[in-house]
């Protein structure tokens, strides 16, 4: 048993290492130097060309001209210590920017994913229980419809209706102006208020797929002998529904949960843009727009590491949740 955890942990580090290397290489592929956009922007603002060049020359504190392998070594060594360099566009350490952005993104992604699961599982289980009923058909129809709506469409509409038209929710930002960050009611309320729409649009579009999956799994489980036997043994419906059906139906969804988390993390690039919500995706996008290599690599890597850790946790815990998987060979996803 023990060796499995060891091996799995080693594999996680190797994956992170490879992904870090890959992201380094990928970002080197990007067109245009890191300063071409800055240059153009300054020129456009009417700053004379000579001054622009002078200003940019003064910014060359990174080593874009060093041999690639040296840049790579620098990058990997620093990244290993949590140092992703200084953002070209923002002039701040990337790690600091990420540190302030991560909690917001994690908050939105985690909350919406959990909500998707809770509601999806509930709906799917009820549908399976009343398979073929009008409720089942209705929810199935709604689920399929919701599945065919991209989350950003919902996001844009929700923003328009609930924020701009009705003014029920703020249109941008993570907390209200002047709200002190800290453990206090005002902060939490404000944070929730700001996150409500992003979470809503992420959640509503995800529930459908989850409900359908849960419904399918549950119907399959309901066909198993042990459910019939449990019924014959006189177990109450609720006991059968939770311990015999739901649990076995949820298991296959479990790994999907973490994969979904990954998809959601990636999706924040669009979501946070729409809601002007300065999380990881927001900064990743702005970094991309300004060819801010360090910030881009940093956000990319952090999203990736989050995903790798998620899968890692899934792998480690799946064996505990599903006794059938002997840990030595569990590859959860």
């Amino acid at each position, binding site marked *: 048993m*023990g*060796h*499995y955890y*060891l*091996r799995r942990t080693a594999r996680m580090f190797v994956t992170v290492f490879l992904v870090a290397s890959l992201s380094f290489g990928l970002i080197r592929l990007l067109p245009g130097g890191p300063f071409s956009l800055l240059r153009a922007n300054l020129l456009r603002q009417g700053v004379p060309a000579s001054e622009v060049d002078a200003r940019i020359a003064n910014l060359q504190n990174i080593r874009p001209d060093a041999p690639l392998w040296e840049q790579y070594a620098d990058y990997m060594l620093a990244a290993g210590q949590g140092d992703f360099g200084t953002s070209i566009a923002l002039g701040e350490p990337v790690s600091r920017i990420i540190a302030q952005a991560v909690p917001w993104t994690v908050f939105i992604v985690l909350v919406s994913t959990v909500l998707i699961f809770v509601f999806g599982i509930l709906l799917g289980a009820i549908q399976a229980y009343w398979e073929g009923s009008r409720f089942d058909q209705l929810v199935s129809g709604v689920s399929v419809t919701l599945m065919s709506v991209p989350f950003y469409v919902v996001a844009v509409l929700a923003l328009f209706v609930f924020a701009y038209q009705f003014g029920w929710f703020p249109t941008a930002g993570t907390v209200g102006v002047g709200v002190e960050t800290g453990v206090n009611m005002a902060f939490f309320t404000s944070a929730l208020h700001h996150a409500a729409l992003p979470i809503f649009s992420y959640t509503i579009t995800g529930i459908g797929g989850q409900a359908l999956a849960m419904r399918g799994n549950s119907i399959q489980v309901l066909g198993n002998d042990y459910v019939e036997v449990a019924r014959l043994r006189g177990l109450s419906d609720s006991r059968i529904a939770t311990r015999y059906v739901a649990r076995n139906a949820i298991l296959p969804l479990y790994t999907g949960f973490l994969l979904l988390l990954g998809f959601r993390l990636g999706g924040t690039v669009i979501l946070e843009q729409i809601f002007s919500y300065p999380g990881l995706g927001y900064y990743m996008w702005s970094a991309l727009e300004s060819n801010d290599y360090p910030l881009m690599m940093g956000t990319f890597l952090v999203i990736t590491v989050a995903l790798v850790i998620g899968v890692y946790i899934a792998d480690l815990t799946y064996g505990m949740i599903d006794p059938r998987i002997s840990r*030595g*060979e569990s590859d959860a996803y």
Partner: protein
Amino acid sequence: MSRARDTADAETDAEPLIAAEDVEVHFEKEQGILELFDDPDVVKAVDGISVAIEENDVLALVGESGCGKTTLGKTIIGLQQPTGGAIKYRGRDIWETKAGNTDLSFKDVRSSLQIIHQDPGSSLNPNRRIVETLAEPIRLTHPDITAGERRERIHSLLERVGMTPAHDFASRYPHQLSGGEKQRVALARALLMNPDVILADEAISALDVSLRVEMMDLMLDLQSEFNTSFVFVSHDLSNARYFAEHGDGRVGVMYLGNLVEVGPPERLIADPQHPYTEVLRWATPNLSLDATEASDPPMRKIDIPDPVNPPSGCRFHTRCPEARETCTRLQPELEEFSDLEASSDRADSSRSHRVACFRSEPDHQYWESSAIED
């Protein structure tokens, strides 16, 4: 065709068709970093078995679940690579042949050794109609015959195995067949390869009792027609006896990776030498009214020991009612049962009756040692 070559090459005829020589199949459980220095968990599924199969021979292997009879069967037909010993097909090591180290073509060896599985449910590809399943072996053995001819052959063979109207059955999917019909198709599929040996791995166990004789009869009929040998694996001694006796072959009794008794069915049934054979015989239902009343089993424990750590000495000693102290230390060899009747035709190996039990040696130290108390 291998058969054609055999006649040309008279020398190889002296060799048995298949010879298992001291075959071992040990499965090692996967080891991790932390367990590198521990002894690995090894399942000794087959542990030092030698057995030969002649042309047109029948070998029935019996034993309870987990005794290694299926592993041995698969090793014999080259599906399982032995971890020790050798499997020789007409004198050439199969696995050497696969590696290209002999003058035989592995393709020929492969097609000569076929299998029929236990579970009718999974023996046929659910997505292919019967005709497609049966076309596969013909495509392999006769790559250049026309589609029409292929279909012709399939139909006539289907009729031969009793599935009429053939064109109707041919166009069905497996789920439209009963278990017995599926097994017939599996048999037909194996036969279309023109094999020398077919492993029937519990091929009739999943069928209704009433269908078993029919299926066995069919296999035996086709055996003589095709000049095929059978390795018949079963947990049911009466089936093994029926098959082996009709096929004029032997029954081998296996226990935890060892062959404990082998011999002609009539003698093995009538005069079982190994206590475990007695157990199997006890377990076989008998319709004779006086025998229907269940008696206590001639063994001390119901469950077979964990094959990962098989008992020392004679592996049966933990359950054997006759076990004595010696049995826990020494492992008996499979030896000719010294019986006057048997020794007369000793030359014919297929008729010999061999057993691995100290009790067959009248002057063994076993008789001196003390009985085991549970």
